[in-house]
């Protein structure tokens, strides 16, 4: 009988998931993905649509960038090309997603509007691809992410982004009805809200198991 513990094999994935969603939340802790966070969080429906799109693009981006980095750039000693290569891959994926959405879900395509091509410049996507080729900060080994770990990290980082986005949209929909002082209307109160959310998420910092 092989020495196989389900808990042990799944532990890294649990660590990565909790880590990516709560402890190092992309928006509220790492400051990645702020432009869409501010721009798309006014309505809950667009927020969740954007979140889904981001999760999808992050996963696809990791799927392509990790192998290309590990099996082509590293052996060829050309890791300095990673920024250029990654951003081109991401731009192509977003183009692809745009075409698919236009064809199969025109309603979502319309409501996302100009924000869809903006996913390319969403620093969160490029951020997750770069983080995935560095050392895994969530497990104890300190080794680089394996392919599966990188995929999980990509998905969960997207989930964390969506969580922050959806929470923000829920709050902002209610803020619309509140009596906000004139100088604070619009961006300022959104930032202060994000700040308060960020304080809440600070509670997760340093957590490890």
């Amino acid at each position, binding site marked *: 009988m092989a020495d196989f513990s389900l808990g042990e094999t799944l532990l890294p994935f649990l660590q990565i998931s909790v880590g990516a969603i709560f402890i190092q939340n992309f928006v*509220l802790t790492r400051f990645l993905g702020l432009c869409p966070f501010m721009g798309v969080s006014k309505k809950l429906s667009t927020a969740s649509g954007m979140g889904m799109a981001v999760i999808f693009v992050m996963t696809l981006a990791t799927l392509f960038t990790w192998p290309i980095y590990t099996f082509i750039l590293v052996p060829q000693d050309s890791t300095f090309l990673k920024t250029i290569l990654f951003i081109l891959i991401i731009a192509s994926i977003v183009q692809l997603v745009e075409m698919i959405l236009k064809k199969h879900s025109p309603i979502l395509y319309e409501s996302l509007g100009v924000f869809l091509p903006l996913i390319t410049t969403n620093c969160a996507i490029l951020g997750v691809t770069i983080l995935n080729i560095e050392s895994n900060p969530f497990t104890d080994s300190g080794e680089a992410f394996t392919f599966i770990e990188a995929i999980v990290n990509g998905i969960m980082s997207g989930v964390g982004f969506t969580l922050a986005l959806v929470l923000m949209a829920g709050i902002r929909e209610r803020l619309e009805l509140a009596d906000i002082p004139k100088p604070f209307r619009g961006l300022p*109160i959104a930032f202060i809200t994000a700040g308060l959310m960020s304080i809440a998420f600070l509670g997760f910092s340093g957590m490890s198991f």
Partner: protein
Amino acid sequence: MISNIPKELKRGVITENPIFVLALGLCPALGVSSSVVNGLGMGLATTFVLIASNLIIAMIKKAIPAQVRIPSFIIVIATFVTIVQMVMKAYLPGLNDQLGIFIPLIVVNCLILGRAEAYASQHSPINSVIDGFAMGIGFTAGLLILSTIREVLGANQFLGLTLIPGVEPISIFTLAPGGFLTIGFVIAGLNYLKIKKERT
């Protein structure tokens, strides 16, 4: 016709400030503004990329077909960011450590792609350089304001030197929430000044 430099500077720093007015480049604005040295370093690096990419894009704009506009711009921007990253690693390793992931992220700083699309692709190289310079200085100025507030309040320091010995700073300003709160209040403050000006 060459643009009027002081006029462009006023536009870049005040009336169309990238961070506070256009809300571009927010990620690095919050991510590296926990100390003035980092903010300054990031601002200057971004300004360099902005000027360089604006120049090249203005020079080759006629040769690029409209459909591959955005990918071409991205390649040019990514090239200069990679160069900046390598030069920093070689000659300013301490700053490189502190700025971390935000250096490669200059590529997706919506400010640079935004200026390439909105200005450099339609104006002469010289004017594009001036625009890049003005916007870059505006971005750096915004970063300086944010990082000064955050470093003074959050670490009781400026440029790494203590301000008032023995006083415990409000540490939250150097952490993530502090970034959000600071920029929220700064924009609110600027809005207040604008409203007051409109009333008179």
